[in-house]
């Protein structure tokens, strides 16, 4: 892993199109600005990891469990839905 030390207001360039700017440092928090092309997705690591794990779980859904909940839905409606 490449490790760089940056001061407030200094930047990091990644390739030709991505720039990361250190905007603020306070306590244990660093505020970063990210300039990247619209086609580059930028996400916080922790939500990305949660989705990855939930996708992995989702790939294990059983047809039996899905059929059961589908039957409940077809007979009635989800309990969270309010009458409209």
């Amino acid at each position, binding site marked *: 892993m490449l490790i760089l030390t940056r001061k407030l207001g200094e930047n990091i360039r990644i390739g030709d199109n991505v720039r990361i700017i250190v905007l603020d440092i306070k306590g244990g928090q660093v505020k970063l600005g990210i300039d990247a092309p619209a086609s580059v997705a930028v996400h916080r690591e922790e939500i990305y990891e949660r989705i990855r794990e939930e996708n992995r779980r989702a*790939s294990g859904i059983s047809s039996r469990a899905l059929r059961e909940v*589908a039957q409940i839905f077809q*007979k009635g*409606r989800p309990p969270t839905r309010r009458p409209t």
Partner: protein
Amino acid sequence: MRIANGQLGEIDVRSAPALHIPGGLIGFEDHERYYLIDREEFEPFRWLVAADDPQLAFAVVDPDPFLDEPYVVALTEADRTILDLEEGEGVRLLALVSPGERGEPPTLNLKGPIAVASNGIARQILVYSSKAPLRHPTSSAHEPVRRGARGRQGVGVLDRRAA
């Protein structure tokens, strides 16, 4: 053309809508092409079966009938670019269905829905709002689901066909 899935058996995909997910789903980056499979017994849920690996299948559903309020998420410019959306064009949203924990019914992932453009391009998007749970219940095991005559209201969306 037919593909075989361990849970769904043989599937005729000739008339199934095809989805292209550039870059794949998060954690499943190697699989970009899927078929959207409808079976009456699973309605309103649908199956997303990987075209290059039919053993890989996800269940998805339009989450609106399971919510008090319409499910609305914000797309980033990156999302719109990858989905190749026209100016002002919207998407349909599908929630991935996860197995329930400890015997509970399956849940809907509202934190990472799949946005589907009318051109068949789809993308898993990330929702940062704390109002969007990772595991939204499809029904409560502790509460009876049927609620008399009004109970059929959510069923109208079963006719909604997409992609």
